């Protein structure tokens, strides 16, 4: 017996490489246990601090581990800690920190239990880190489920709000369908290639299995569909508006940014690393999906008067833009996607922070009505929202402009110039709703015609008086201002971000 155990070679574990995963997963457990202690001090101060500390540790280790160039995957080739994974991880951690701050002093968190709430958040982030680094079909699936299951719960965490419960259930059902599709596809891929490693799959294609193998292609298609669910790529986006609207807004912000980034991280890695041989098959299909997504997302957003739904639809459209970077399958594409995701982080956080600030004090909830005349009433909130909208629409001096420029650059260089034109046409449609938001804030007391869906009146979630000004929510205003400042700063001085982005994707440069 002793001999048998001795014969098993223990895998070598790179503790430093795994540190971000340990920090988030371990943080999740610590926060859960600490949450058992009652008391306002623990629940309101200690737990958020612990959760934030875990994320800060993870950020520190991600920065320390940053090493451009080729890096071998760890844990027997199951998990990459290359620059793409680390870059995306940093996006998750920052978004997580933002979500923690945005959830402070919020009644529903206390209803749900701050320990559980924050623990779920950290667990979901751990899943994202695994997903972004997955070099193996099994890691991919484990990461995806670890990401998704806590999110289903978090969406339903405003337990007194029926919409929130509905949102959680809807996300659970549709998310499971997506996961099942993905799993089915992964199984097909494994069946065709006989390998779960991305490297092994790439090597098998063309050797052991032909590039036109129907089993393989079916597997690729199903996997793409499964991931499209997560990235809310049309026509698999239908859950997005309902779930985004019903979920607590800090969670919506988290999902909008981090989940999307995670989905794109694995899309980039999977297609560029495991299926580079098949690019002629999947690239046109993804290009078609991108076009559909851009059109549907932008057209869908036009009729919305709930800001969260509007941002959800706009998120669908933005997913279409991002997909361009995957379609071209070049290093430039990877870099453009990474750049745009950071821009996307800044602009969405600014917008969602303002939505939260208004939602807590206004009887109109997240309706457009809640930001009417905000330019006079609270310029400190109106400016971040304005900047976010201009950036999402792609106006210059914002990160959104440079990001789109980069994506179009990648598209044209990758012989998909027409996709670049689709992007700009989509942006043109998007002006209708982005500009309407700005008009409601700055231009008018009565004139802007809102869509005719009746507004949803809700009780202010947190019990502040409606006349409360942004100074009553200093942390949320601060987040909005910071994110808006980042949006502008990256639009004027993008070089630091370019320097970081240049390293991203260098680890599998050889395969693309």
């Amino acid at each position, binding site marked *: 017996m002793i001999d048998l155990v001795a014969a098993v070679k223990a895998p070598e574990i790179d503790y430093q490489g795994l540190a971000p995963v340990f920090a988030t997963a371990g943080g999740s457990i610590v926060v859960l246990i600490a949450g058992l202690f009652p008391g306002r001090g623990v629940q309101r101060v200690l737990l958020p601090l612990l959760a934030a500390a875990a994320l800060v540790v993870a950020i520190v280790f991600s920065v320390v581990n940053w090493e451009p160039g080729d890096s071998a995957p760890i844990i027997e080739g199951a998990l990459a800690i290359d620059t793409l994974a680390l870059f995306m991880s940093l996006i998750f951690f920052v978004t997580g920190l933002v979500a923690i701050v945005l959830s402070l002093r919020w009644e529903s968190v206390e209803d749900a239990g701050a320990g559980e709430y924050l623990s779920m958040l950290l667990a979901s982030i751990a899943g994202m880190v695994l997903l972004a680094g997955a070099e193996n079909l099994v890691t991919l699936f484990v990461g995806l489920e670890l990401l998704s299951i806590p999110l289903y719960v978090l969406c339903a965490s405003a337990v007194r709000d029926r919409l929130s419960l509905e949102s959680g259930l809807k996300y659970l059902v549709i998310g499971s369908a997506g996961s099942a599709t993905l799993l089915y596809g992964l199984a097909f891929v494994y069946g065709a290639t006989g390998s779960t490693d991305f490297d092994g799959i790439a090597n098998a294609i063309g050797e052991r299995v032909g590039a036109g193998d129907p089993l393989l292609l079916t597997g690729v298609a199903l996997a793409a569909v499964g991931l499209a669910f997560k990235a809310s790529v049309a026509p698999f986006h239908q859950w997005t508006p309902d779930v985004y609207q019903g979920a607590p807004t800090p969670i919506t912000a988290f999902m909008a940014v981090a989940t999307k980034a995670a989905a794109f991280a694995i899309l980039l890695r999977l297609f560029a690393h495991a299926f580079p041989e098949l690019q002629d098959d999947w690239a046109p299909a993804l290009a078609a999906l991108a076009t559909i997504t851009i059109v549907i997302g932008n057209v869908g957003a036009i009729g919305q008067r709930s800001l969260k739904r509007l941002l959800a639809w706009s998120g669908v459209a933005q997913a279409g833009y991002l997909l361009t970077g995957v379609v071209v399958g070049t290093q430039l594409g990877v870099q453009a996607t990474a750049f745009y995701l950071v821009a996307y982080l800044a602009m969405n956080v600014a917008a969602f922070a303002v939505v939260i600030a208004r939602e807590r004090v206004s009887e109109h909830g997240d309706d457009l009505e809640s930001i009417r005349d905000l330019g006079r009433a609270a310029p400190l909130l109106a400016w971040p929202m304005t900047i976010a909208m201009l950036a999402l629409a792609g106006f210059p001096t914002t990160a959104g402009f440079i990001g789109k*420029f980069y994506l179009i*650059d990648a598209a*044209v*260089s990758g012989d998909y110039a027409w996709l*670049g034109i689709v992007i700009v046409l989509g942006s043109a449609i998007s002006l209708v709703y982005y500009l309407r938001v700005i*008009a409601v804030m700055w*231009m008018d007391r009565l*004139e802007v015609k809102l869509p005719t869906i009746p507004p949803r009146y809700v009780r202010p979630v947190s019990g502040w008086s409606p006349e409360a000004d942004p100074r009553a929510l200093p942390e949320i205003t601060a987040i909005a201002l910071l994110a808006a400042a980042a949006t502008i700063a990256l639009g004027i001085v993008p070089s630091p971000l*370019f320097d970081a982005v240049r390293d991203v994707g260098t680890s599998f440069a050889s395969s693309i």
Partner: protein
Amino acid sequence: MLTIHLSIVVFLPLAAALLAAFLPARIGRWVVVAGAIGVLGYAIALIADFDRDAAGLQYVTDEAWISELGIRYQLGIDGLNLFLVGLTALLWVPATIWSAWRETDRQHLFLFHMALAETAVLGAFVAQDLALFVFFFDLMLVPFYFLIGGWGIGPRVAATTKFVIYTLVGSLLMLAGAVALGVLTASESGNDLTFSIAELAQNPLPEGTQHWIFLLFALAFLVKAPAFPFHGWVVDTYRATPTPVLVVLSAVLSKVGVYGFLRIVLPTMPDAAVYFQDLILVVAVFSVLYGSVLAFSQVEPRLVLAYSSIAQLGFITLGIFAIDDLGAQGAVMQMVNHGLVVAALLFVIALLTARAGGAPTLEQMGGMALRAPVLAALFLVITLATLAMPGSPNFVGEILILFGALGDKLVFGLVASVGVALAAVYAIRLFQRSMHNRVGPGAETHELGGLDLLAIAPLVAVIVALGVYPQAILDRTEEATTAQIARAVEVSGKTAERQASKPASASGTESHSGGSETESHPEVSEIR
């Protein structure tokens, strides 16, 4: 030569406005006005100091901005943009003063947007990098969106949304076109990715590729101009825009589009420009006729100007796409003229409207000349300039354009010259209805105020000065405009014909090296 940093010129208004944002409104407006006047000072220095004989750009600033995308922060002045910068600087001063000393809601915000707009327009004029040009071109829309939507008249939000969507659809397509131009040129020539206009012009793309990129650019510039089938935003915007904003919008913003043709399209896509020459000329001539005809059937003075602007910009486009030295020079001249004239007219109309009790139609006006002779005299000078009376700068501009067009594109030139006649009709009608006739029902007639005089008189002085001495512009622009269109002229084979028809020319033996040598044309000498 003086050392003038163009960055200071471009960003001075914005810096002043940002500073003013932290000062009380009473002091802040002085700071913003000082910023605009400072830019004007710089512009005058530029014009005085400009070396008219030197080829190429002057006062160049050239820094790497986003090296990963090959975007450079490259600014420069040549004969092409010198006077457009001057026009911008000149018009922003009265526009800013006009609004700084009138009762304005949220004044500091208004002045901030005005200043941001000036920075963006100046940036677009001096940018020598295509990506930087697109950057400023799109940025321009942001302040105008707020200015029209926040301080406009009537259904302003609808108007501003329409305006921005119309123009931004064009400029977004241009963004795609610009990226494609840069990237495809880089892959074609094997050089590093660059958007520098001069370098793009060195390595033109194959003709087929030029065609679709040309169409993207043309759409953006024709919408901005506005030209005939793309002018849907014009009427609502002219109605809704507050006067000082409309002054700069109509006088300066409309020039950015046609300027883009000369600066970017003709040098970098000469084959496509020649290929689509007739198409654009048809658009231009239609704009002239359509604009002129509609201009004399309008009852709102602002709409007279809206349609006359379509006609004038059509005329300028005609000059550019005549692909002829004289035409291009006339186009640049006419850009400045139209800017000056339309700005002065808009100020006058704002005064007339105020005197007619706020009514925007011609029926409510009339008979004002009697009691306001100074106003009437100034208005008359402007009107005569509008209808291109000999002795006005517009006469020189239009005649040059027509000479340019009559050379090869005789039919287009002849049809367009009908537009010149029509201009007389709408300009005189506008003057007569508002100044003579019976006194309008609610009209008060009194003389100009001091502030109003300050806004209008300098413009009229510049118009008269240019009428007396148009060489001030022509001398300085000739070199640059000839160089800009040289390649397109070469493609259209016009130089060959012309040199063949001029055996006396000394340059007959050497092969034309892309127009770097300046020729003096007999027609120009006649005007001189």
